[in-house]
């Protein structure tokens, strides 16, 4: 259990509900969170609160009429591993992986781990609109539609400018890895900060 003040108006509450199992419903997308997402870390590399990131991903999925399930992947901090694990637990075979710093990937269970459906590698360029669209596209894949891929932005300066911080965040995130640990199912609640 982790209470996270976002600094703005919403508080993210993630309650662990035991080991995450494979989903039975075909209309679901599984969101796989990295070990320290919404826990030790509360915001992305560009200070977007994790509460808002998760809310937009979930909203994008809900808007499409698709069910979402959130898990925390504890056994590693590699995005492809997290996203692929989420996809394998998903009843639709579609999963989304998110790292604390904001890097995101849409994966499918039958793909090889290092492949993906859509990858958003540059965390500093991720904004809330992008997260909403990623949720939307993941849900559309789950429905068997052919979504237009979310435009992946690219900035040549992002790498030199953010690489050091990204590396530090990755090292920190990796410290929370529990090797061999099972992914856990999470209950997600958003509370308004002023509502306590």
């Amino acid at each position, binding site marked *: 259990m982790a209470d996270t003040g976002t600094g703005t108006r919403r508080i993210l509450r993630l309650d662990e509900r035991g080991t995450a199992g494979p989903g039975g419903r075909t209309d679901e997308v599984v969101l796989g969170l990295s070990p320290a997402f919404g826990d030790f870390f509360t915001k992305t590399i560009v200070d977007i609160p994790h509460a808002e990131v998760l809310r937009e991903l979930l*909203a994008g999925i*809900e*808007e*499409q*009429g698709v069910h979402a399930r959130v898990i925390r992947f504890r056994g590693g901090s590699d995005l492809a591993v997290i996203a692929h694990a989420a996809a394998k637990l998903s009843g639709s*075979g579609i999963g989304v992986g998110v790292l604390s710093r904001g890097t995101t990937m849409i994966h*499918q269970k*039958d*793909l*090889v781990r290092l*492949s*993906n*459906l859509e990858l958003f590698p540059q965390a500093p360029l991720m904004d809330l609109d992008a997260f*909403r669209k990623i949720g*939307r596209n993941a849900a*559309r*894949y789950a429905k*068997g*539609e*052919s*979504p*237009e891929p979310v435009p992946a932005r690219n900035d040549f300066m992002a790498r030199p400018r953010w690489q050091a911080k990204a590396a530090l965040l990755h090292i920190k995130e990796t410290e929370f890895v529990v090797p061999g640990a099972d992914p856990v199912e999470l209950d997600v609640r958003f509370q308004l900060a002023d509502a306590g």
Partner: protein
Amino acid sequence: MTLVAGVDIGNSTTEACVAELAASGEVTYLGSALAPTSGVKGTADNVEGVVTVVGRALAAAGRRLAELDTVLVNEATPVISGLAMETITETIVTESTMIGHNPDTPGGAGLGVGTTVDFGALGECAPGEPVICVVGAGVDFEDAAHGLNAAVARGVEVAGAVVHADDATLIVNRLDSPVPVVDEVTLVEKVPLGMPAAVEVAEQGRTIRTLSNSYGIATVFGLDAEQTRMVAPVARALVGNRSAVVVRTPEGDVTGRRIPAGSLTLAGERGTRSVAVDEGAAEIMGVLRGVRPLTDASGEPGTHVGGMLARVRDTMSELTGTEPAAVRIQDVLAVDTFVPQRVTGALAGEFALENAVGLAAMVRTSRGPMRLLAARLREALGVDVLIGGVEADMAVLGALTTPGTGTPVAILDLGGGSTDAAVAERTGVTRSVHLAGAGDLVTKLIDSELGLDNRELAEDIKKYPLAKAESFFHVRMEDGTARFVTEPLPAETFARVVVLSDAGMRPVPGRHSLEKIRQVRRSAKHKVFVVNALRALEQVAPGGNLRQIGFVVVLGGSALDFEVPDLIAEAVSGLGIVCGTGNVRGSEGPRNAVATGLVAAHALAAGLDQAVGE
């Protein structure tokens, strides 16, 4: 024994066959080959392609260049074709009367009628007042739902909502009593406020019933007969949508306007007539039929059509060294098509399928620089080069080597730029015709109707069947069958419609369904190839009567298409004609007809060839 090579220089491919002629006149075909044509057909630039193809054919026959006695070349006359597209209708929405786009996920279901109110002013509405709430950019879905619920709790009758963001389902999921919500209205700030409006959303898989019906709109707004007449175009524009908003403004209207697209002047042996391009393809082709055979055509300067015809003329005059004024357009094909265009004045970036006319034109000259080409070829190959007879006659001779054919026979040569036809009667008389419009026009129609803006992809869609990648291990084919693969498909093809090209699966971007792409592809082929096949046969058939033709042999690159020959066969099946794809010499398929015909004619003439040049 002499070794000869027949070479057919076509618009896009050069074909050759190598044969041995016995003194008795007996012909033994040894090998054939094809290569892309270098340069424009019938010019000295072709030498490179001819040298390549002769080399390949000799290699296939296991002979050397030194053994070759004669090269026979068809009388290749340059053909230049041009294409133009002119959009002739547009839809204009005035005073933001209507939002007729199809967001993927509108919220709620049913019809809501009320006065438009900005979300910020919802608190000022009196209880009992029916309102349609307009939620602008930047309003969070939870806040929007909360505000709507609060207004309802106060007794305000919230009948529906129009939303900027893709939030309709999110909002409706949080409402105490769901109402129809239309979302993704990008210019929501332009929705007139304080006006009577109606929002309608249909259940998934259905289309709206009230706002797409003129009397439905009249009922909602209490319109009289005259006013109903005014809103009829709005209703028409909304047919087939799953969601819609209609706002009743004093002057609001939706109009369909015809865009003047200039005129086309067709001069024929039976007179000269002008036709406005925006009259559509049927009218243009009707006028053409009236003046046929065409001697020249020109378009109004400053229009696409005028520009295209001038371009064709200029290219040909450059090539042959004649005055542009002396170049005559010999045929025009007009085709009705659709182009997706942004609706002027629309609030949600709506697209309407507007009417357009596609035009193909061609010129052909009899004065190609053939002597120069022959002389250059002689230099390059060091072999005697003879220019053979008329292309159409040669093609007929070649086509007759198809097993099962007999006279009277008609050939249809479906190429890239033009469709050629020739008929050979029992008496030996041949007649031929060259028409504008073939494979390139089909590609263009597919490209514009699907809004691809990618010629190469359109070309692939034309040439190969489609499938939908339903998982990484199976695709659903066009005919509904599933095909399984053992190796997982590439990630970029997942969930997409793919073209099954020879180079592998190629995903088609955009959200067109497989059925839609297939229908566009088939109708484009029908509009060009079937129409042209009938037009061509009609012009060469004895007495213009198609029933007088016994056999039709389909030749040319486009005859290799997986459905064009079937479409044509279907179209002429009622006329008692045997129609099929040629199989030259029983082995070459629809290829190599002219090259084969050249050799056959040479063998027949036995020494009566006219050597040109020297």
